[in-house]
């Protein structure tokens, strides 16, 4: 028991590396970096047409965001 205490006190203290604070993400960044995923969308009541529409809207938005990002670069 005592040995353990001696061992632990003898160990040099190693400071944990401080992680640099990351900057906050803005809504437009969030949308561009993590766009809506059409493959996650389902219609439990079987509204295939509505589902197609919402998936198409998500894909169109994704393409628009990608084009905007390309233009910015």
């Amino acid at each position, binding site marked *: 028991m005592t040995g353990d205490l001696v061992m632990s006190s003898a160990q040099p203290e190693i400071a944990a590396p401080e992680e640099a604070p990351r900057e906050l*993400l803005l809504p437009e960044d969030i949308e*561009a970096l*993590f766009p809506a995923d059409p*493959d996650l969308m*389902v*219609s439990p009541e079987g*509204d295939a047409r509505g589902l197609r529409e*919402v998936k198409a809207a998500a894909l169109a938005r994704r393409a628009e965001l990608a084009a905007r990002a390309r233009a910015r670069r």
Partner: protein
Amino acid sequence: MQPMQSVAESQVPSLSVIESVLEREDGSYRDRGNSLDTKAGLILSAAGVIVALVGTTASIAAIVGQALAIAAGGAAVWVILPRVDKVIGPKELRDRHLSMDPVRTRLIVLNTRVVLHAKNEARLVTKAIRLRYASALLLGSAVAILMSGILRAAG
């Protein structure tokens, strides 16, 4: 902007608040959708009752009332048609995101839910507008039948 591999929760401090608000909103639009469907069902039933009760009365006003009741019934079906049911599939979510960074998954789910929410809200507005037409047609039908009764009593 390049795809980011991971994101710290400290970069999106209010993520959990936004998620819980969206959760409540999801419940709210589902309730509103059900309420609109119930009202449309009532209009459909009332229209059926009017058509059956008026029967083959040979009065122009009664026939107009019946026609309006049929139109109200059609409009009620038109209210029920747009479904407010788009959600994130649990199986799809598991299959695509199980091994991903959790904050990244939460943000993708959030953005997907925002898109679904916008679509479902638009559907709700459509349903509400159609319900107004159905209600107006049913009222018109009732007025026409009342007129028919008054005319019969007078003549």
